[in-house]
């Protein structure tokens, strides 16, 4: 065998966070796909609005449960930031468990308010196009609350049952990133459906 110069990579670490990690790019790409989805629904909302002289055509939707839900979503973010911060060097499993449970519980409560929100809407999806798009936007975001909430639950189970591996620190951070995304779109969804017709244009 002919001798060749070499680069020895055996001493390189086996874990990296943020854009250094391939998985970060996977999750970021998925969030880009989801953002496009949400944006298209928002575009559809405005497109349909352009066809109506009166918007919303059937009176403003009640804002109560939605505001409570939004408040809860925002409240769930600081504990998630605690989980995010803890999952790195010097991680403490107990601290991660505690804050993740807190954030998850508040998030699931927010999901409960989303379900209540549907109950309060004075129109159904099959009443008019406005009803269709509102149900679609709230439903789409509701599914994300459900899926992300389920993912939080999964990580709580993992942190208790184990085996917890080094690479799960990265997973926990990306899980937090997904949760921030869901909350951010919760804010936009709220603005679109409640502020646009009710507050910003009155």
């Amino acid at each position, binding site marked *: 065998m002919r001798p060749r110069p070499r680069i*020895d990579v055996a001493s*390189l670490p*086996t874990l990296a966070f943020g854009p250094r990690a*391939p*998985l970060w790019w996977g999750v970021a790409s998925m969030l880009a*796909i989801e953002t496009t989805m949400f944006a298209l629904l928002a575009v559809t909302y405005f*497109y349909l609005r352009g066809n109506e002289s009166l918007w919303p055509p059937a009176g403003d939707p009640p804002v109560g449960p939605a505001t409570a839900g939004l408040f809860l979503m925002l409240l769930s973010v600081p504990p998630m930031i605690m989980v995010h911060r803890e999952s790195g060097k010097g991680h403490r499993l107990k601290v991660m468990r505690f804050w993740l449970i807190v954030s998850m519980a508040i998030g699931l409560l927010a999901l409960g308010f989303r379900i209540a929100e549907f109950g309060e809407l004075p129109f159904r*999806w099959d009443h*008019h196009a406005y009803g269709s798009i509102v149900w679609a936007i709230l439903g789409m975001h509701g599914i994300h609350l459900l899926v992300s909430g389920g993912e939080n639950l999964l990580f709580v189970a993992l942190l208790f049952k184990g085996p917890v591996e*080094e690479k799960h620190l990265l997973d926990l951070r990306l899980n937090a990133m997904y949760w921030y995304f869901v909350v951010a779109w919760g804010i936009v969804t709220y603005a679109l459906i409640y502020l646009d017709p009710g507050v910003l244009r009155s």
Partner: protein
Amino acid sequence: MRVAERYEPTVEADAEEARQLRETWKSRGGLIGWLGETDHKKIAGRYIVTAFVFFVLGGLEAALMRFQLARPESGLMGPDLYNQVFTMHGSTMMFLFAVPIMEAVAMYMVPLMIGARAMAFPRLNAYSWYCYVIGGGLLYGAFFLNVGPDTGWFSYVPLSGPEFAPGKRVDIWAQVVTFTELAALAAAVNQIATIFKYRAPGMSLSRMPLFVWSILVTAFMIIFAMPSVMAASSLLALDRLVATHFFNPAEGGDALLWQHLFWFFGHPEVYIIFIPALGMVSTIVAAFTRRKVFGYTAMVLSLVSTGFIGFGLWVHHMFATGLPQLGQSFFTAASMMIAIPSGVQIFCWIATLWSGRPRLAPPLLFVLGFVFIFVIGGLTGVMLASVPLDVQVHDTFFVVAHFHYVLIGGAVFPLLGAIFYWFPKMTGRLLSERLGKWSFWITFLGFNLTFFPMHILGLDGMPRRIYTYRAETGWGDLNLLATAGALVMALGLLLYLINVVSSWRHGAWAGDDPWGGEGLEWSVSSPPPDYNFQHLPTVRSRAPMWEQGPDQPVVVGLRSDRREVLVTRLIDAEPDHRETLPDHAMSPLAVAIATGVTFVGVIFTPWAFPIGIIITGIALIGWFWPRDESRELLEEQP
């Protein structure tokens, strides 16, 4: 890059390492092993074969249409069957052939071209293929049960809405679209992560092969375009299944909304098919002129700008719907502007061919055929960008001729060239050049005989998607010519297929590098070992096989007792860290079946949706839950 001391393994140590790598990366046998396969090469091989099966089916549908139109008032097919056949043909070629085949070739070649042992998310590839197969199976299952979709590949509302298309046909179409787009999205995400993070040390972005650049641009286009058609088809399904009113003008909905959502995907889609083909052309031109492609930077910038401009053209499919003047001007300008980057690339290839000594092997012939056909298609494209002309020939055979010139010329010809070029790498055997040349010339001749007359038919006023026409129209002769051309073209493609099948078994052995190619894929054996590279290569040139000496460093220190890969930095590809990839898994199949049950179920009952979410959730937990052979545990454990 730190270069340590010289690497002098003993012969025994080297053989032992190869043995261990084989053991670690090998495929498992049996049905379970086959279903749980995660090797990018094997999944991509299945993907390519599947896509060509759909290509043949779509081609047979095309032949049926040509037989029907060969003479006036033919009674071969009734209008209902004809509607199904042209819808199947369009949907098959766009959703089940063109996009998947490009993704599949990329899935096979990209890791080899960037010097990686695998793709970033091996199980996601498997999931992508299963989704694709379920989607394609659903479409053809429905067709053979006489519930094939019949509203065209773009399924305009209100024709496809609940009022005018009762029954399940359009629902099936909508779910097939959702499925195949899901498959494409999964593959695109995987490509982005792989290309960004798995490139061999030294392969900075500015040294990346042009084909890899084209796949990167395509992947980003998929991410921003495909959600649009998924949203559109989901809203259509909701209108049809639970009586929403998105596209129902009587209740505040809007039919044109469908066209906007569809074409915001549909136009980028054309470039999603075409841009990988550009990468293939660059690869082949370089290999058969033995010159690096002229104007690398201009080529890359053209690919990227095509990707951007491709999102600004969708409304030119809607000129006939009555648009504001400003909108017409904007989209006309954008449609003409896209000719600039394409032109830049054509000139760069001509410059490369001019300065080199081209060897007219079949792959290069297919590329030259591409240049000829695509330039004609591009010219009619510039014509169609002008609103007055577009309104005149809208929905006629002129448009059919135009898009077959750009799609077959722009994508299928480069693809056939690329398959010819990479076939030896994939199978270890060469295709017959003589048969290859015959198949090229016959296909080329047949193609032009089929589609050139359609320009004239279109200008003559023959609308597309009519199942027959009267003799007095005078369209009979040119239609007969087109049908004859289609037979010639089919013969050429059949020869190609015969070449592939017979060479796969009896072809001459190719060796590692039969063409003297420039890229890293030619540095490994043909077919490549399961682990691709025993020692990852390093790169200091755009043409590593041509310009790097035997003193180019190799990477050592990756473990061979587990599926360990090297992660490098995004811009300069300096080594950054190592990571371990998952083994074979059944979870992708489980999740694909769960999503399949959901999407097919909702056609029949809305309850399939909540049930589907639950079973998909369970399957996903199975995917993500850590296996027992955990490594690198945190010190503190519950």
